[in-house]
Each structure stands twice: as C-alpha cells, then as structure tokens.
C-alpha cells in the first residue's frame, strides 16, 4: 500500500515550462500546492559550455525518466511502431526550459481562428480533407493579458510590432495587438544578421528580431546574455536564460505555499466513484506514496500527459481518465520543422558567439499573412535566420558536394568554410488529422512495465505544400544575401517524436471533440486540469512554449478565482 501523505489543495505533476509557471499564481493565491518533479534541481555548475557533454552525449541529468519511457513511432496505422532513439525532453526542476532555445513567441491571431478565417476568406472547402482542426474556443485577444503577464514575470526580450494598434516596422507587423512593449530589448544582431535583414528588405520583406526568454539586460536580479554559443541544449552559466527553475518556481517557493518533491515518478491519477480525481500515486525509488489533492493539474510533456491519462483506468473511466469520449490522444500533431534549407556563403558569418534565439525573422510567408487564393494549401512558415554554431557541429557540416567528407581536401574545405554555412529554422503551420494520434504501445513498456506512448503520425499534403512553398522563399532570401550554394531537404514524411508536440488533450467547448474545456479543465472530471501544448489545437508557425505558459497561467488563475466550484 502506498504511504498516504497529507492532503494538498493542488498537486501539479511536472515542474517544467507549464507547471513551473502555474505554481506561482496558485501559491500567490494562498493555495497549498505540491509540485511533483521526476528530476532534480540543477544549477549553473552543471551548465558547462561543452559540446560533447550537451550535444553529443546525454545531457547531465541525474534522473532519466523520460529516457526510460521513450515513445514508439510510426507513420501510419499499417506499420509497426519502433521505439525512438532518444527522448526529446529532459527531467529536472524547470524541465526542458533549462536547455531550450527560449524562443518566446506569441501566436498570431489567425492561429486561433484557422477554420473560420479560412472559410471567410477562401471558403470552407479549403480546410484540408481529413483534418480535425477547429477554431480555438477564444481568440488571441483573450490570451493577450496572459502573454503579457508571463513576458513580464519570466522576462522576455523582443521588439514589438503592434503596440496598442500602432504598427512598428522594427517588429513583426503581423503580430496581434500588444498592450505593452517587451520588458527588455531584443537580442543583438551581428554583421551577418544585418546583412540578412538588408537582403530581406531588398526583397520587400520586413525583417525583425525574434522574442526570447533571455535577458538582454539585468532583469530579475540576473545578468544579461553572454552570447557564448552553447545555448542550444545547454543551460546558461550566467543564469541569463529565464528558465522556470530561476523565475517562477523560486518565487512560488518564497510564498511558503509550494512544496517541491524531486525524484517523484508519478504513475497514476486516482478517482472516486463519481469520477472526480482524488490525488496521484508516485514513486521515489522503491517507495510508493499517495498524494491526496482537491485538484490535480497534469503538467508533464504532451506524451506523458496523454500516457498518464490512458494509464489511469478506473470504473468511472475504463479507457483511461477523461477518455469516455475517446478523445485522449486524438488531434495529435508535431510541428513541421523539417524540409530544411541550407546555404554556403563566400564569407565568414562570424556566428561562433550567438544563440538560436538570436536572429532575423521574416513573417511575410507565415499563417495567412499572404493571399492563398491561387495556392493549393493554407498556412505558411516563419523564416528564421539564427545563430547556432559549435565546433563539432561546424566540422560535421555538409560539404555541399565540394569535397569528400574526410581527408586532406576536406580539411581544406572546413578550414575555409566551417563558419560559412547557415540553415534556416522554418516552423510551419501543422494541422491535426483524424489518422494522426497517440495511444499506448501494445508491445513496448517502460522499466516499471507500463506501456509507452505510441506516435502514429505523418505530415500530410497541406504540410508538404507549405514546406515546398517556403523553401522557395528561403532560397530567394539566401541568394539575395550572396549564398553560393543552397540545398533543400525533403518536405516531410513520418512525424516521429518532437520537442513541439501538440494535442492529445485538446482544449475546446465541445466535449465530443475535446478533452479539456476553455479553461483547461476536463470535460469529464471537473477537478482535473491539463497544462502544456497538449491542449493546443493549432501550432502556428512559431515555438509553442510562451503560449503553453500563458495558457498555464490562465488556467491557474482561473482555478484560484473559481476555487470552490472546481475543488468542490
């Protein structure tokens, strides 16, 4: 029998990007909060600028829960799914915000209204066949105050493009109306970024710097970015990356209302006879505990949120918690970030000291920012010319067919060209489809014997057409900046596992097609909430983290305000 612990008001499962944010408004409201985290605390002593440690080998996590429950993956239901080689997420207090790129975009208004806006402008028939996409239950305007509060609280640097309705061409003129500026100016540009921006302007586009949860000046008592070049999959040795382990979680702890339990491996969510959740079971080593709580918030990654629901079977929920409508795991998709476009330049980029959140964005070809009347797809891609260069990665660069990838010719090639290649990061509209989904793998289990998640997903025709279209724009931009070689990767097939995994517990008003309501609480079990990108029904063309955090804060604030009606 598990050891019964003292009851809490709220238990939050996972203290990463979303759960790590939600604990703050809960603790500030005076609720008694327990945060269960599979990993441990890590700090800047662990964040060496060491490519072998961070990028080649496993990151120095003490706990590798995610690694032991790697999903299986297949393109479609006719195939047998194979377990992926490594899990894209990490276990630690702060979760993947410790070593993420920290790009902190708001979605554009169109992303909340894909169905109605497409129908209005082009006709309903333009929604791709088989897609289960819906409008969000609210528009961008509803989320704006929550974006704002998270940008201030964790600290986001950037350049506004639409400040209270006034367009500023230094920022993204396509963004939704912002009520306030970013709390810090954007990360700096190098000479190469200036050159790319100039080339974009020459094409009639509007280049601008992207937003990042990275300090560009002292903020929250922590230093500004040092541009050391090891930010991608590296923690920050200066504490300039605004991971939740440095921002919202310590602040919540300071209220005295948050207890953090590390190495807590949650196995199931328990329910009573009426289908209300009563708490969670977790293991620390071989010791099993039951943490009772009046409200449970699931805030692990998309794959684990879905898995915990499907594993938590009961009389009330024989097919998994909150799954009596068969929607858990549905409407899953991962962001189409493939179809890379790469270039070789005849000059050094001087890109050694920089980070993926630093760069030049072009949004002309994203979302519905351009006329799709004569095109055969909806959506688009954000073009991102970033900095990301480390020695081993640079030496491993494509030789663009100019040298065999070893030997003396290759030595000469990389001596000259190691700092002359570039790859755009192109995030593209990705839609949910009826035959892309998550479920429990029938064959593969974790170390405890529980099934792992099985990903069934492939990029469909609409996503592939978006990719091919934006590849043309990317090549045009590279050529305008003087590239001497440009190559393109394939436009997409199987999805595989991703750091941008959406859906599975989609948010919406209709319980027939959504797991959680517009506030993030289960349609079936009213004191169960879900946080993270698993509630998002569309991807937009930009990173999900800030949106997941704004939604998490909003769900937590709603819980605090509506405590008696939700907690019962």
């Amino acid at each position, binding site marked *: 029998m598990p050891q019964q612990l003292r009851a809490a008001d709220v238990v939050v499962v996972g203290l990463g990007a979303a759960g790590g944010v939600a604990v703050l408004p809960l603790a500030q409201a005076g609720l008694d909060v327990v945060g269960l985290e599979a990993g*441990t*605390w*890590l*700090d*800047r*002593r*662990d*964040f*060496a*600028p*060491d*490519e*072998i*440690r961070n990028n*080649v*080998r*496993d990151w*120095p996590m*003490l706990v590798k829960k995610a690694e032991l429950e790697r999903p299986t993956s297949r393109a479609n239901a006719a195939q047998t799914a194979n377990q992926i080689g490594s899990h894209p997420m990490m276990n630690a207090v702060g979760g993947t915000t410790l070593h993420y790129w920290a790009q902190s975009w708001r979605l554009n208004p169109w992303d909340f209204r894909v169905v109605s806006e497409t129908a209005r402008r082009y006709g309903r028939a333009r929604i791709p066949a088989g897609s289960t996409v819906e409008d969000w239950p609210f528009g961008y305007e509803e989320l704006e105050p929550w974006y704002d509060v998270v940008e201030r609280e964790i600290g986001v640097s950037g350049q506004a493009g639409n400040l209270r309705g006034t367009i500023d061409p230094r920022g993204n003129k396509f963004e939704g109306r912002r009520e306030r500026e970013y709390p810090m100016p954007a990360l*700096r540009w*190098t*000479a190469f970024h200036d050159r790319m921006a100039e080339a974009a302007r020459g094409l009639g586009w509007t280049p601008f710097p992207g937003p990042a949860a990275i300090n560009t000046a002292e903020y929250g008592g922590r230093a500004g970015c*040092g*541009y*050391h*070049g090891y930010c991608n999959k590296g923690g920050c*040795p*200066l504490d300039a990356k605004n991971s939740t382990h440095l921002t919202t979680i310590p602040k919540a*702890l300071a209220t005295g209302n948050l207890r*953090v339990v*590390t190495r807590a491996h949650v196995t199931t969510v328990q329910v009573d006879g009426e289908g209300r959740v009563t708490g969670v079971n977790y293991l620390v080593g071989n010791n099993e505990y039951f943490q009772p709580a009046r409200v449970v918030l699931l805030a692990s990654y998309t794959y684990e949120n879905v898995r915990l629901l499907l594993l938590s079977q009961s009389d009330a929920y024989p097919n998994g918690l909150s799954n009596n409508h068969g929607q858990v795991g549905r409407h899953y998709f991962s962001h189409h970030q493939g179809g890379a476009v790469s270039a070789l330049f*005849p*000059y*050094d980029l*001087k890109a*050694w*000291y920089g980070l993926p959140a630093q760069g030049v964005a072009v949004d002309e070809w994203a979302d519905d920012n351009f006329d799709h009347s004569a095109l055969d797809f909806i959506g688009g891609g954000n073009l991102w010319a970033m900095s990301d260069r480390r*020695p*081993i990665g*640079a*030496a*491993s660069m494509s030789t663009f067919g100019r040298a*065999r*990838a*070893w*030997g*003396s010719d*290759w*030595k*000469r*090639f*990389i*001596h*000259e*060209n*190691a*700092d002359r290649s570039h790859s755009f990061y192109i995030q593209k509209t990705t839609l949910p489809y009826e035959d892309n989904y998550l479920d429990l793998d029938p064959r593969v289990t974790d170390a405890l014997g529980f099934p792992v998640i099985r990903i069934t997903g492939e990029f469909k025709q609409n996503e592939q057409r978006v990719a091919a279209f934006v590849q043309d724009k990317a090549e045009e931009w590279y050529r305008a900046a003087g590239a001497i070689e440009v190559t393109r990767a394939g436009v997409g097939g199987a999805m595989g596992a991703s750091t941008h995994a959406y859906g599975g517990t989609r948010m919406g008003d209709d319980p027939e097609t959504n797991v959680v309501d517009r506030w993030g609480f289960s349609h079936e079990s009213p004191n169960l909430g879900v946080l993270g990108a698993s509630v998002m029904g569309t991807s937009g063309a930009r990173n999900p983290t800030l949106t997941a955090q704004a939604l998490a804060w909003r769900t937590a604030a709603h819980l605090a305000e509506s405590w008696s009606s939700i907690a019962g």
Partner: protein
Amino acid sequence: MKRDQTVDPAAHAGLSRRDLLKVAGAAGAAALAPTALTASAAQPAAPVPLPVVPVARAAGPLMNLTAAETEILSAMVDRLIPSDELGPGALEAGALRFIDRALSEAESQSADAYRAGLAALDRYSRYSRGAAFAELPVRDQDSVLIDVQTGAATGAGTGFDGSSAGFFNMVRDHTWQGTFGDPQYGGNAGFIGWDLIRYPGVRLRVTDEEQRMLEAEELEPARRSAYDFGQFQTGRPAPSERGR
C-alpha cells in the same frame, strides 16, 4: 612525418605503422610545423597560418583495444583527418586517446563494434587489396575507406557482416569529437581542431566590442577548456549538494 599524399613511407621503408608512430612521437613538433595554407576558392579564408604546437602522433597503449586493433584504427583515423601541409591531423589532436577513453565511459557500448569493425576492415583490405590496411599505401587506404563509407565493403567472410557504412560513420563521428571537442575528453590537443576550423574559443561572455573585433579579424583565440573556468563540474551533478 609529413607524408607524401600518395606514397606511404611505411610501405617503402619497411617500417610498421607503430614504429612510425613512435618515431613521430619522439620527433615532436618540428617535423609537424605546418606550411602556408593553400587557398582553393575564389574568396579564400583569411590566411591565418595555423600555430605550431607540440604534438605527438602516438597515443600510447590503449586500454580498450589490442596493439593490432590500435594499429588499424590509427591508420584509419590518420586518413580521416590527415597530417598534411595544412597542419596536424586527428592523430596529433589525440583522437585515439579520446576514442579509447570514450570506450571506457560514454561509448562503452560501442567497444564490440570497434573490435569487429577493425577486424573487418583489415579482412576486407587483405581480401580486396592484398595487404593489411595499415601496410597499404595511402592511396589504397583511401580507396578501401571509400568502399567502407559507401557500404561496398559489406560481405560476410570477406568484409563487414553488417553495414560497413555504419562502422565508418561511427569512427568518423568519434574522430571529429576527438579532434574538435573540448580537450577535457583527451582530444583536441593543443587546440589543433579549433585552430583548424578557426574557432575563436570558449568564452562565457562575449561583449558587443568582442563581437565587433571578431568580425574585424582582431579577436585573439581563447585557448581554454570549459573546465578551466573553475565554475563547472565534470561528470554528473552531485546530488548531495542539491535541494532547497
């Protein structure tokens, strides 16, 4: 020690590769001083001569491979990133030491693949070129490695049981890591790898002025390991020091 591009002195002088390695280790830096770069493109990189650093080609006895396996691996690594007129290569950078250490730690699961792959490489070399891999002239070593890289050296009994390309990519990846990774792991001796690709070194904070200097070719390389800062722990975090 700088060798002709097509003629292997070992094949002519009757020396084994290991003898050559010993000689090179004793000879030290002078024999390896690089000559000026040969520019090969329309807009060549800034002609910064690679610095002369004390280097040794021999790794000493390896813990995880036999002397015979070491000889084959050494010859292969030497062709992947050769010592040539541009400067020292992977052997001088300590890639063998890096690989050996990795096989004891992070890459211990690859030890069998190394043993089997090196035996297969030698078997394929004898079968297809009539001599042990380490004894072949470099031109033939290169043509064998092309076969291995492309998967053409696959064939139980005469070459690789599995994909020869997998073995090639594994050794090349580790050679890159041992040449361009942080010196903490036993490779990149004298910052040979970082100089080769003109990496200006590990810094924790790069000011606007330093970025401008880098763009103006005025920034001196910072020759240090990440662990020279004294701030960072090696290996895994120490749990006893954690918690709040």
